[in-house]
């Protein structure tokens, strides 16, 4: 099986990148191909990078409280470009009810503080294996 391609992205003006960088390194160490966008990305920049880099997964890291605006925006832009096959997952300071609302509109799992990186790795690998099986 080919390696999963993941775009780790920091949408919005939030500068907290400790989590994003730790996650990016953990996914890379787990054998995935990881691209990190750097800070202060607009949803447009993220969607464009995802399409250009032909990624399987976008991991969004948001600690600023802007998740209800920025995450759906990335999803809409990907849909517009016909790439709703890309898994959008992520994490940050996101209250549970917001997580549920986002999951209800087709966003993948969102992880809170204290999540072991092994859990993210397991989730992404599981999702990818499932998708490959369906495509085969």
């Amino acid at each position, binding site marked *: 099986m080919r390696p999963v391609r993941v775009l*780790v992205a920091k949408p*919005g*003006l*939030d*500068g*907290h*990148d*400790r989590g*994003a*960088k*730790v996650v*990016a*390194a*953990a996914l890379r160490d787990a054998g995935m191909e*990881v691209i*990190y*966008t*750097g*800070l*202060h990305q*607009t949803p447009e920049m993220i969607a464009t990078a995802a399409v250009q880099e032909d990624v399987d997964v976008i991991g969004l890291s948001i*600690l*600023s*409280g*802007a998740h*209800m*605006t*920025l995450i759906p*925006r990335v999803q809409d832009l990907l849909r517009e470009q016909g790439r709703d096959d890309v898994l959008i997952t992520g994490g940050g*300071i996101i*209250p549970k009810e917001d997580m549920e609302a986002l999951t209800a509109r087709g966003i993948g799992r969102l992880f*809170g*503080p*204290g999540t*072991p*990186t*092994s859990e993210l790795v397991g989730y992404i690998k599981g999702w990818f294996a499932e998708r490959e099986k369906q495509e085969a």
Partner: protein
Amino acid sequence: MTTVKTGPKSAGGSIDAPENGASEDTAEMAKLRAEVEDWRRRYSKAELRDIAFTNSAREVQPLYTPLDAAETGADALPAPGSYPYTRGIHPTGYRGRLWTMRQFAGFGSARDTNARYKFLLAQGQTGLSVAFDFPTLMGYDSDHARSEGEVGKCGVAISSMADMETLFDGIPLDQVSTSMTINGPAVILYCFYIAAAEKHGIDSTKLRGTIQNDILKEYMAQHAWCFPIEPALRLIVDCFEWSATHAPQWNTISISGYHIREAGATAAQELAFTLADGFTYVERGIARGLDVDSFAPRLSFFWDIHNDFFEEISKLRAARRIWARHMKERYGAKDPRSWMMRFHSQTAGVTLTAQQPMNNIVRVAYQAMAAVLGGTQSLHTNSMDETLALPTEESVQVALRTQQILAYESGVPNVIDPLGGSYYVEALTTQLENEAESLFKQIEEIGGVVRGLETGWLQRKINESAARQQWEIEQHRRVIVGVNEFVTDEPELKIELLKIGDTEQHQREGLAKLRAERDGDLVKKRLVELSAAAKTTENLIPHILDCARAYCTLYEIRAAMEEVFGAYREPVFF
């Protein structure tokens, strides 16, 4: 206690070889040495727990004795209030004055936050501290396209002097001290504050407070910037220069280790990188031709108080000593106020857990005690719910009460530097000082702080520490109660979270009204003047202040300077 003078700069832990030589060994010392050797034999045969014993990449000894306590001589440990201030900058400690209880707060609109400030002041808080939202931190107005979804979310939205006036409505600015956590556009918000005070007839010389204004740590760790490094440093020196005469009671910078530590640095890295930033600002001030004693007394610091209790206390003691020594010996400062490190502390946000959030109250209490034992001038205690959302009024009250219990019930502030002379604390203070000195040398070798930021050397060091800590947690080398040990399956405790209303629409309407009502020609004129001055070496504060008075908005002022300075581009890596 038995004081053993082993000479300055000798690290603790030299049990076998006394630096002064065996010839000076007294009978008492020989007895002590024999006892320690006997203890070590017994210790090394015993079974030990397999766990990391410290939060830093340093081993601590299982026992400290007079043999380890370097720097306990009069040179390093004079009375509190005397150089190099290891035991504190005030001869009275907290007996003269308690620390300032300063809770960092801001959310929604200026009006929402104004109500929270009045609540905190009514609860006995003694200073104000403004948290701005991300658009404000980056210099964007609330109606800028980049601000969408972020307005008022994790701080208060301030887009012009008009918002600043609302923020402090009914709060006498000549009677409170106000700290503002703002960096990239710090001088702009500073000018909004000064101009707002002016409208109430309060002169800038009467104002007391702090702007964080520490851009180097933004590039290093916190990441809210506007301009490239060199023009950003120029604005900071402009601020030092202007404030020396116009706002002599204002802290022109709060050189911050907090964000460096939160991003992953160890205690020693926090200490060294922050002080290296401080030295860089001092060097830039001197390079401008300023007398070091004209601005150094207004430099303040900000430390993160993490979990390792004694390490944090020692870090604060070491910080004071290093700053004093460098300011006096290296930069030739003559005014003792230039040697004294005054600082704010905040308990470590990164140590809070989303799991079992009530446990955070206990973590915060220990950290707060470490800050006080380290001699902090002011303190913010985090609230238990901050890994979930901005804190509610109830949880902020518990956090503030934690400080009040410490101040009035624990007895801790009764004695000045009560851990001074502890074998462990003195040895660790010296060890942290030595580790910082060794990191200063490495920073010098790579070409200084600015070069270290451009090449990413400093950022990489912090990332490496963050990655190691994550590994330790996942390997259970480091226990986080409720996260990787003592985990419960019970549903998380229900605590009510703060909800923020629609600030964005409110701000958009306010800005539209402001733009319609202000003198448009004057706004244009002021902005053109600012751009023109930015091309010269003139001090920009008077020009920014004129823009503020004319109700130019935050982003308009940023853009007028960006036209000349350009914008910062981050080196991206992980």
